[in-house]
């Protein structure tokens, strides 16, 4: 079986969010970059587990972006995977990114494509579904469990207020979230090995962006907390009822 895991580069969860160029660009100065947590903790680790169970599995990673992404790709390779492919194009919108990944998936003859449930920067939750449609494959999103028996795949996916068990077959695109796997820390052997794993750079296919970001804004600052004395919690209920009017 051949598995492809989509790896995205995102600002660290604690990064300060600010904008430049008249609020049209994310201010990257001083920002620490990480592998998008959903891609790393859930999609990649579950794919590694599948390879550990069946060592004949081929596991590749794919990233869309410039050479500045290579450090993040090496970090992901330190966790696992045989090789990585970077599509050499500045990402524009979800559709252009998905078009590149779909092409890589098609060319490489993969059976299973993993994404994280969303990236923590643009929160689009879109890449997996778009890739599945471009390939005409099944898509199971927000999955918390995945097990493969031959070409049959059993998954659990989120529904409102619970979970649903589903069955489908390969080829398949899955977006993974919490529950799918447990976060791993790369060991020294993995980090050393990652340096020599192949990182192939491929040129993009033509794809037209359907959306663009016209500008960013920060939410209005909070007015500050109104503290109610601990010996008079009834006052809090009154404020929520009469002032905030939420209960």
């Amino acid at each position, binding site marked *: 079986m051949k598995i492809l895991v989509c790896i995205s580069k995102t600002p660290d969860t604690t990064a300060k969010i600010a904008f430049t160029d008249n609020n049209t660009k994310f201010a990257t100065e001083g920002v620490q970059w990480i592998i998008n947590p959903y891609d790393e903790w859930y999609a990649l680790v579950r794919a590694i587990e599948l390879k550990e169970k069946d060592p004949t599995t081929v596991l590749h990673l794919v990233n869309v972006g410039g050479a500045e992404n290579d450090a993040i790709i090496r970090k992901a390779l330190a966790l696992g995977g045989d090789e990585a492919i970077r599509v050499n194009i500045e990402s524009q919108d979800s559709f252009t990114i998905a078009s590149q990944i779909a092409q890589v998936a098609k060319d490489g003859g993969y059976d299973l494509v993993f994404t994280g449930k969303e990236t923590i920067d643009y929160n689009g939750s879109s890449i997996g579904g778009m890739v*599945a449609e471009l390939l005409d494959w099944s*898509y199971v999103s927000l999955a918390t469990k995945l097990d493969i028996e031959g070409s049959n795949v059993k998954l659990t996916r989120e529904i*409102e*207020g619970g979970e649903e068990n589903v069955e489908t077959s390969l080829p398949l695109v899955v977006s993974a979230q919490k529950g799918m796997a447990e976060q791993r820390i790369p060991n020294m052997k993995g980090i050393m090995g990652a340096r020599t794993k192949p990182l192939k750079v491929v040129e993009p296919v033509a794809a037209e962006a359907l959306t663009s970001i016209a500008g960013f*804004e920060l*939410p209005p600052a909070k007015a500050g907390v109104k503290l109610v004395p601990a010996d008079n919690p009834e006052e809090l*209920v009154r404020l*929520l009822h009469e002032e905030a009017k939420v*209960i």
Partner: protein
Amino acid sequence: MSVLVYIDHTDGEIKKSSLEAASYGAQLASQLGVAAHGLVLGTLNAELSALGKQGLQKVHQVKNDSLNQFDPGQQAAMVAEAVTSLGATVVVLSNNVTGKALGPRLSARLRAGLVAGAVALPDTGNGFVVKKAVFSGKAFAQVAVSSPIKIIALTPNAFSVSNGDGNAEVADINLTVPAAKIKVTGINKIKGQIPLSEAELVVSGGRGLKGPENWGMIEELADLLGAATACSRPVADSHWRPHHEHVGQTGGAVAPNLYFAVGISGAIQHLAGVNRSKVIVVINKDPEAPFFKAADYGIVGDAFEVMPKIIDSVKKLKGK
């Protein structure tokens, strides 16, 4: 030209998030001066003509029980066919669990730009620009859609349900039903509970509650208020509460009218899941808890002393 709203349903009823999408779609249609239609795939107990209250003029339905099992590939093909045959130029759906799977497939199929997680009506004065939350709620982006057909996936609880007088015309629509590739084999859901993603009020507990045996007061307050219950990451990781209650960076994101946090310190990763809540209340005995900086109201105090009094006070308010 029309706005087509995809109406999502479960257990025979229209989801509240789809009533919001219908209200949004109808207001957008009147902004554009076009008709607002709905599309229902599957069978319901609910009376579809009632979607007129949200402003839809006509609801198209494919009455087929098998469509109640959700396969995003099958449904994307059907919605795309409906968009073409009805001449819709904007598709509105909720960015709920269904919309997150369906919206992107539909976008790729129709080559229609998708705004996933819209929080306001588009600015159509010059182009088509939709505001959405980005950076896990820490900022907003104005997204310009350049394709002829546009798809808007509306964040749940970001737009109020309108309740007018109208009655929608309901008609069957004939669409090709492709074979489903995904089979639902089991559902694990507690009936009668308010799903967290649709809740207007949320009561949430953290490690400060010391153990799952102390969740009675969280549940009692939630019951009294008609709220959903939630928890922080350590609580879900310790299996004190089910994973689907976990809100934060790695759990679910919520945007209720009230987020009532008890014994949660408010790490930046937790705030990422709740920072779009309209009103945040924090009960914590540590005055230095970072959550107070993001809160609207707070009590610095011991939850075990404060909560029973709050519950009594809410009982009085509710006349119970």
